[in-house]
């Protein structure tokens, strides 16, 4: 059986977990077994609808105290559940919480693990999974040598598949270990789309010359419904908050669309964004290295091009 861990916050299942379910369901199809989901805590989502993503069952440990994430507690419960349910493969989203617990679960199950996976397993010579390495600059095919396997799938690398299923919900009872961390404060940036969850991202670099010029970028992002990001020099100069820094030492993202404005495209920046499906580069320097990594390019002054692009998108949305 393939067991998929469902990550959630504020009573909502995270988008990355939807993808993990479809990925797990595809592995279950390969192995000829069932795909079942595991939920620790409570959510407002309709759990039977997880069948549409490929899960035949949802095992739920219905306890509000698990809504606060505690890596030690969650890893321990997932490992116990996986043992009790005799899961062969355990799937996580390679997101913030997935990174914190999947390796611990692997240790507890004596399972080999591949994190940052970006393909279905190749079963021809055992069990091999491809993952991104060197911050997206290369791939490695990793063979898992153990009977049990743990895989954490990169966000936006598999997508969602549709199934004609309705999941059944099974309540699970496990003793809950004592909390190891105490959550004292949550500070969410209201109204912004989290970068790692965003399908569309608009990003700015030094070419915008100063924080006072960010208005055109924010306007484009708002019109598009995109999250905003920036290059390292921009966050280092405090033009934009640190959490917007994408690149090798910032956040690595893989949205459907990445629009880079006034970013030259240093190798460290590319490492953070080169898994984006489509890259648009706007830069007045035709020699900017970013154009080599782009799908679409506009050589021109950002202060003219960006408002024109915003207007064009606005017009397109209006005509829909």
């Amino acid at each position: 059986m393939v067991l998929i861990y469902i990550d959630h916050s504020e009573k909502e299942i995270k988008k990355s977990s939807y993808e993990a379910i479809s990925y797990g369901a595809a592995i279950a199809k390969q192995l000829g077994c069932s795909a079942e989901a595991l939920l620790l805590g409570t959510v407002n989502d309709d759990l039977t609808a997880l069948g549409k993503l490929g899960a035949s069952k949802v095992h739920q440990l219905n306890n509000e105290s698990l809504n606060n994430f505690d890596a030690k507690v969650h890893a321990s419960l997932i490992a116990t559940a996986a043992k009790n349910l005799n899961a062969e493969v355990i799937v996580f989203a390679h997101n913030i919480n997935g990174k914190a617990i999947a390796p611990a679960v692997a240790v507890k199950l004596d399972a080999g693990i591949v994190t940052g996976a970006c393909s279905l397993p190749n079963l021809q010579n055992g069990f091999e999974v491809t993952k991104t390495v060197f911050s997206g600059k290369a791939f490695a095919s990793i063979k898992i040598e153990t009977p049990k396997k743990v895989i954490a799938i990169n966000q936006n690398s598999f997508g969602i598949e549709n199934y004609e299923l309705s999941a059944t919900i099974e309540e699970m009872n496990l003793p809950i270990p004592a909390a190891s961390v105490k959550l004292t404060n949550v500070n969410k940036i209201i109204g912004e789309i989290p970068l790692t969850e965003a399908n569309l991202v608009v990003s700015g670099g030094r070419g915008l010359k100063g924080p006072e010029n960010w208005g055109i970028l924010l306007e484009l992002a708002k019109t598009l419904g995109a999250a905003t990001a920036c290059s390292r020099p921009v966050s280092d100069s405090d033009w934009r908050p640190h959490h917007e820094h994408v690149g090798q030492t910032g956040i690595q993202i893989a949205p459907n669309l990445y629009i880079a404005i006034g970013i030259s495209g240093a190798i460290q920046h590319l490492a953070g964004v080169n898994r984006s499906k489509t890259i648009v580069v706007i830069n007045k320097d035709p020699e900017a290295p970013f154009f080599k990594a782009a799908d679409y390019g506009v050589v021109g002054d950002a202060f003219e091009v960006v408002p024109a692009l915003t207007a064009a998108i606005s017009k397109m949305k209006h005509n829909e």
Partner: protein
Amino acid sequence: MNILVCISKTPDTTAKIAFTEGNTKFDENGVQWIINPYDEWYSLVRAIELKEKDPTTNIHLITVGGPESEPIIRKALALGGDEAIRVNSNSNDSYVIAQQIAAIAKQGSYDLIMTGKETIDYNSACIGSMLSAILDLPFVSLANHLEVNGNNATIQREIEGGEETNEVILPMIISCQKGMAEQRIPNMRGIMAARTKPLKVVDPVATNAHTSIKEFSLPPTKTGVKLIAPDQMDELVKLLKEEAKVI
């Protein structure tokens, strides 16, 4: 307070990524090795800052690697580590590496075990989480702020679209990222002192690898950028909608 800082060597961020031996090995030819930036800039420097506040703090460094790791260990000592242990193993299996670190951690009484959020070569982000399972300790990942007061740590960690604050009773494991501290350059006094700081080399404990790397590959190169004139933004929107199908 005793802190164990895990450091790893990685290729320089601008290193050319190429492979040898039928694409089964990373081509180390001409590669400049550095301390993994997350280990150095955030985890190690924060440990040093904690020592500056409380000089009774001991900072031990651990790395799992061959003799070619020694220059990066010396640099970490020059920045402010007190002593270092190198486990002489070239494994690239996270589980094997975590077991080596855990074996050393069990011999000391560390209040805090610090790692970077991931290495920039294998990007697995496994060591901290694995250590928490092997050592049965609390783990907070992707931390961008850490304060220690007695045996109580206050940690800010990244969550989707924000941050949360956790309080944890030491000992614990923490993985660090941007925001935690600022990069430092070792000064001449540190570099001189590092020469005589203890660096112990120990043999690895026997552990079976759970995984093996079969093949590396490079991503397909982009077919070439399609240029759109600055006054043709309607055309760009059309391409994004109908050709790329992303909006």
